[in-house]
């Protein structure tokens, strides 16, 4: 398998984008990435699209054909594939695109992720997201995605004595970071009290422990390393790609306080990249809920099991800390348009590694990591990116 690089990136602002349809944001991100790569539409060999649930949000399936069409790529009748894995759809699309270039099947591949969530009401959105958990044995009985993570948080507090204050350090940090990100949904820092006093969603998780409903799209252009320098002076190598699955229902996991899928996916990616966790300087980690970032820090290996809450609370994951986590603002403050998130994470790491992260720049960052989860942890994807 040959080495693969990211030669172009693009993303929309994330938020409630009332004036934009899914087509519009998908194309916007795609065109931005193509321009950033300095290629033309005719150079694109294949398209991968990550999207969780356009079929329910906007009653549109067959998404890859739609995006290829509106991106003006159907003239060349390129292969277009839609990829789905709950909230990890974007990162899985990235992996599929990566594998297609690494295998030699294609050369220039555009991978986009997009989600238009706000065309339906909040109640509908909650129901649609619950399709990523077990419909028959969780949703039917009253479980929602946040309620499952709430049960994880409750058990975590029971076993490790963690507190809501410690959990709150995650959204507080991510909002502070997002305040420096012009593409973020929420660009305002918040205080811990705001998190602690927010109305409850499913206790112990309140509104500010949970990522928002968002519209948005992001895209990257992939190329084999051997020709990447033709297009850009700063190709970013995908040095490791890991993917893992686990049970659909949370209650069937080996241990609900460890996302085994994250453990396996990160080991797989690090092994391929010949890297250790201590080499990672900047990471975009799946923080759909405050507890998820904390558990992911442990599962990836930044800190040992049970110490994640304190690790976060003591500032080790801030810019300037041991590892800068979610400099984009994370899912919480940057936004979480489900299918786009995995790609947006890669876009942020590329910006960091290119030195283009402005006020959120992590000095001297050369190795980064992205981590994306589907459902309550049934799918995990981890990618290692580094300066070529």
């Amino acid at each position, binding site marked *: 398998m040959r080495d693969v690089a990211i030669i172009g990136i693009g993303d929309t602002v994330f938020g409630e984008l009332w004036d934009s349809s899914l087509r519009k944001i998908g194309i916007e991100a795609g065109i931005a990435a193509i321009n950033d790569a300095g290629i033309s539409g005719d150079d694109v060999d294949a398209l991968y699209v990550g999207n969780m649930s356009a079929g329910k949000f906007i009653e549109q399936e067959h998404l890859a054909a739609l995006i290829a069409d509106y991106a003006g790529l159907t003239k060349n009748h390129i292969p277009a594939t839609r990829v789905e894995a709950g909230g990890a759809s974007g990162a899985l699309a990235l992996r599929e695109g990566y594998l297609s270039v690494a295998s030699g099947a294609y050369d220039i591949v555009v991978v986009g992720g997009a989600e238009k969530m706000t065309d339906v009401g909040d109640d509908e959105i*909650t129901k649609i997201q619950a399709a990523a958990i077990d419909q028959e044995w969780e949703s039917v*009985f009253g479980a929602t995605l946040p309620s499952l993570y709430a049960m994880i948080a409750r058990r975590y507090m029971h076993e490790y004595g963690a507190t809501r204050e410690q959990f709150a350090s995650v959204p507080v940090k991510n909002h502070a970071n997002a305040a420096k990100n012009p593409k973020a949904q929420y660009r305002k820092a918040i205080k811990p009290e705001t998190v602690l006093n927010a109305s409850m969603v499913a206790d112990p998780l309140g509104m500010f422990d949970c990522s928002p409903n968002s519209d948005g799209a992001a895209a990257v252009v992939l190329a084999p390393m051997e020709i990447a320098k033709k297009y850009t002076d700063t190709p970013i190598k995908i040095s490791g790609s890991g993917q893992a699955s686990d049970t659909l229902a949370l209650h069937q996991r080996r241990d609900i306080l460890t996302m085994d899928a994250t453990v396996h996916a990160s080991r797989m990616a690090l092994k391929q990249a010949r890297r250790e966790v201590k080499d990672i300087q900047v990471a975009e980690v799946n923080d759909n809920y405050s507890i998820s970032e904390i558990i992911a820090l442990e599962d990836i290996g930044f800190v040992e099991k049970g110490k994640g809450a304190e690790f976060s609370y003591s500032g080790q994951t801030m810019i300037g800390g041991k590892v800068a986590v979610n400099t984009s603002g994370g899912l919480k403050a940057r936004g979480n348009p489900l299918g786009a998130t995995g790609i947006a994470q890669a876009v942020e790491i590329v910006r960091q590694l290119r030195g283009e992260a402005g006020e959120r720049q992590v000095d001297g960052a050369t190795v980064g990591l992205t981590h994306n989860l589907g459902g309550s942890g049934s799918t995990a994807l981890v990618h290692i990116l580094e300066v070529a």
Partner: protein
Amino acid sequence: MGSIPRFWRENPSRYNLVGVKCNNCGRVFFPPREICPVCHRKSIGKMKPIHLSGKGSVYSYTVVEDTPEEFAMLKPYVLAMVEMEEGVKITSQLIDVKPEDVHIGMKVEAVLRKLGTEGSSGIIHYGYKFRPVNE
């Protein structure tokens, strides 16, 4: 019409907690599975139905305040992950209990309750919920 067969075919498990036991390794699974995820091929033909006793204890729980519309009548409700006597865990609501009295380790038993309906003219769905055991 809603989805009638999809709910109807799960009734044995939803009404009577019918799971399955792998007679190769002795592990119990709920809901039933075709093959044992541990024994794989060795479990073919050895998976037998088993009735869970209905008794278990609370492994974790949450009070759901932001609920889907179809559960609005019960809001806020306690959602729990119950560890059954047989070792499997099941997710459902806790009833007949004040949220502040719920604790990890609390002993509970399964009862039949309405899970929901498909609107005012649709089918009514029944299934297990859990209530505290009178000690």
